[in-house]
């Protein structure tokens, strides 16, 4: 699963990031936010859009700068670039979508600590040209988004009885408080890893 050696073809990158080395369920990266934000679909979606933007843009920037970055301060510069884009997302939300910004609260700032972004900058953007790095960042973010939306779908459905805030479960359905709390994401993440690996093993066989 070495990413540095990943083939730099767009199709192969797409498949790798969405499926065979999906950041969440194959590499099990960035799961802190996968546990924290996935109890409501709306929050999850906006958070994931922020991650897609940040991963894509920081990959592009790191790739553009890579020839100039001294080896010693490589990771600090990557962190700076990532933090820069996350703060941009935060400022834009606060200015133009104040309600969403209020609902997400500290989650947006926490995108900085998402290991997927740093992982892609270090493993891919550092050794590949800008455009393909941008694509790699976008698809990595999309792989993250896909898994999180699935987890959020079930957590919101069972935890609140709603989907995107609309009540879908019948009135007699008791909301499962455990689904609202972070531990339930572990169960779903475990299930997704199990199902994903099974399908992959069958494909390989």
């Amino acid at each position: 699963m070495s990413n540095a050696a990943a083939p730099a073809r767009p199709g192969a990158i797409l498949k790798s990031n969405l499926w065979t080395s999906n950041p969440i369920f194959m590499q099990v990266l960035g799961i802190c936010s996968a546990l924290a934000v996935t109890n409501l679909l709306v929050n999850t979606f906006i958070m994931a859009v922020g991650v897609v933007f940040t991963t894509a843009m920081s990959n592009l920037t790191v790739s553009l700068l890579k020839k100039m970055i001294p080896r010693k301060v490589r990771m600090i510069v990557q962190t700076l670039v990532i933090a820069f884009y996350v703060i941009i997302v935060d400022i834009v939300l606060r200015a133009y979508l104040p309600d969403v910004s209020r609902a997400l609260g500290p989650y947006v700032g926490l995108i900085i600590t998402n290991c997927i972004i740093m992982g892609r900058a270090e493993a891919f953007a550092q050794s590949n040209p800008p455009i393909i790095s941008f694509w790699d960042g976008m698809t990595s973010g999309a792989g993250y988004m896909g898994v999180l939306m699935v987890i959020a779908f079930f957590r919101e459905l069972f935890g609140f009885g709603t989907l995107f805030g609309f009540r879908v479960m019948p009135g007699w359905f008791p909301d499962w408080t455990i689904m609202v709390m972070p531990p339930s994401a572990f169960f779903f993440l475990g299930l997704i890893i199990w199902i994903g690996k099974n399908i992959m093993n069958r494909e390989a066989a």
Partner: protein
Amino acid sequence: MKKDGMLYTVIFSFIVCFVFVFILSFTNEGTRELVQFNQQVARQKAILSAIGIAYESDAQVPDLFERVERIERNGETFFRTERDGRTIYAKEFAGAGLWGIIEGVLAVDAEISRTVGLEIIDHNETPGLGGRIDEAAYKEQFRDIRIQDDGFRFPRGVPADPEEGMIDAVTGATRTSESMVDILSSVVLTMRSTLGR
């Protein structure tokens, strides 16, 4: 200059930091008025909805807010208005929650004996647990609760009785709910002592 040399590293780091921070400051400065305006509208909306004044769009908010009278007494700020022939007082509050400061508005009647409404402006409580204090189910409890001499309290083993000043807690968020009871009780006591009721 050697790329991995000390001088290059220092100069490079300085330039990179300078450029990125410059762009950020620029963006921040450019949106500051908009952000402040948003915060102000959010505050005014909270005060209006605590009092129970309906608005259809954000554009109406500043006009409606004009009609609310602002009173300063003993260094405390209150808001007073008439709704359906009744005098209503509102006060902004800020108090310690579980993770951070909870800010909001509490509106009460002229005698400070019954609540009119509650609105939360800002909080850092656990999303999905304590954070649910800003959901309608929690806030709507505060329409017409009889305030006790010492403020509000929790029901213990009985259904919450508004005539006894009882507020239901949020399930799984006992500490946040306790903080709310403490904060709101002290707001009510401040209002009583300052307004002399």
